[in-house]
């Protein structure tokens, strides 16, 4: 019964994280286009924009933060695997329980602070300091989502590990390949 619940949780998190991760990848060409447009507008039209600077930073931040959970799902985040690869699969799961817990704690702190900043941004109508002065509230909503997705993804992997450690069986009979790009 617990296994079914765990499985359902893991699968739905995987689905959402993958969806968000793939969606933000469409922002990458947009980012390049915005920066290129600013160069064009300044050099050719002699009319620098007031929005490209902040917009490019926002897009960059959205890709970087929201893509984090998907990178975690694909095990793309960098770790120092010197000892990690030498120990048994069981020990590795134990290590994961500790390090993922630390990472989840970090994400909870990040979410907590981002909520504070969101409320502050709404209360004081915070904006960027530039002439364009775009709002900041959406950024903190994004940060909360990024932290939430990362925490949810880490928790899913944590559950897989603890299930395997306790029951001695894999939560998913066949581990999904991590190399599926599309």
């Amino acid at each position: 019964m617990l296994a079914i619940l765990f499985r359902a949780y893991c699968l739905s998190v995987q689905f959402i994280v993958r969806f968000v991760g793939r969606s933000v990848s469409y922002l990458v060409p947009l980012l390049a286009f915005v920066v290129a447009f600013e160069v064009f507008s300044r050099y050719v039209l002699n009319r620098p924009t007031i929005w490209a600077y902040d917009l490019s930073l926002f897009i960059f931040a959205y890709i970087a933060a929201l893509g984090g959970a998907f990178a975690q799902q694909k095990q793309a985040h960098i770790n120092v695997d010197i000892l990690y690869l030498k120990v048994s699969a069981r020990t590795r799961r134990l290590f994961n329980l500790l390090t993922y817990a630390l990472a989840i704690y970090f994400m909870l702190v990040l979410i907590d602070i981002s909520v504070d900043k969101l409320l502050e941004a709404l209360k004081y109508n915070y904006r960027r300091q530039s002439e364009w002065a775009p709002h900041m509230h959406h950024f903190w909503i994004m940060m909360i989502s990024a932290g939430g997705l990362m925490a949810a993804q880490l928790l899913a992997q944590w559950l897989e590990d603890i299930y395997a450690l306790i029951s001695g069986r894999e939560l998913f009979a066949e581990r999904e390949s991590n190399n599926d790009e599309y």
Partner: protein
Amino acid sequence: MMSIEMLTAVLLVCLLVAFAFGAPVGLGLGGIAMAVGYLTWGEGIFNIIPSTIDSTYFSFILLAIPLYIYMGQLLTRSGIGDAMFNASQLIIGRVRGSLAISVIGVCSMIGAMVGIIGAGIMTSGSIALKPMLERGYDRRLALGVIMAGGGLGILIPPSVPMIMFASATQNSVGRMFIAALVPAAISIVCLALYVIISCRLNPERAPLGTGDEMKMTPKQKVLTLRDGLFSVLLIFAVLGSIISGIATPTESGAIGVIGAIILAILFKRFKLSMFRHAGFETAILISVAMWIIFGATLFSNFHLLMGVQDMVASFTQDLGLPPLGVIIMMQLIMILLGFIIDEFIIVLMCAPLFTPIAVSLGYDPIWFGILMILNIEIAVQTPPYGFALFYLKGIAPPGVTMSDIYRSVLPFIGIKLAVLILCMLVPELVLWLPNKIMG
């Protein structure tokens, strides 16, 4: 309240344990900072997050990372990047190790485009790692060449750390840039010599005649040469856009992206799936790099708030060494700092602390600044903790482990250390050119 020496020790132990347990680097560093911070400072330390977000996610300088990675990905996935190396192999393929030398050449050009280490290594890695591995080059040689070549980004002008150094110590940026040219040239020559000698001694590290170009028809060869030529021209166009004042070094990455797309369309290599894959891969690499930068900056910001800079300052004050001994000790301190902090923070902290001391001992500040840049190049790639190492792991294919990376960089660290010592002992190598040009 814990003393700063004690806290530094605690942080280091936590860091080493988290690394040994295989924690994701950025999440681990951020987690440690927030956990140790909570225990020593209290809940208030969490407020360090917004300011850290401001200096990482809103840093325009770092925007070079996504733009250059994307350019690299587009070049690679459209096959134009490979064509560059295939073409080079058509021409000089009979020389053992020639591909690695072409890679050093391309890395130097990328180094001349970007001003920060991350962009240099991840772009060079995107473009040049695959061609070397596919041809059966020794994995460590290939990784080491990328690391050493990509690191040139801060030694070949323009360079953000050099601008930071010049400003913090009130020295001429132009003089710094010119002073870096001879050490950069020496580094490039030494790297190439190492590759040639190492491949002579161990021919299996750089096999001959394993590339696609061996099976090509004459028509394919012409096409490859054409594509290769155009991709080199693209690199020159990007460089040209910086030199001619069209774009800043950061923005030039976007010029490169547009150029790569146009080339792909012109050569009928543009496919929607290629375009999608490049964006997808770039997004993951950006996330990986930025979560490391964010977590690591959080870690160093916490350490700075607790006063690590005062520790370094008081340590350098009572050294009681002869002048050259002081300089050497400073180099050691910077390499040790590279253990826990990134290139910008090293300059930020050490330039104003160390340079006045060096000047009071009678040394030239520009010379000292170049030593600092050479040192940083080493510091960010010395195991176990180094941004350059993490960037390289990010760009490396699956199956490359951290020990591969650690081992691959060692000979190249030796070379860079030799260049550093050479420039330390023969200051004319640094000072001759700027004195000749600028008087």
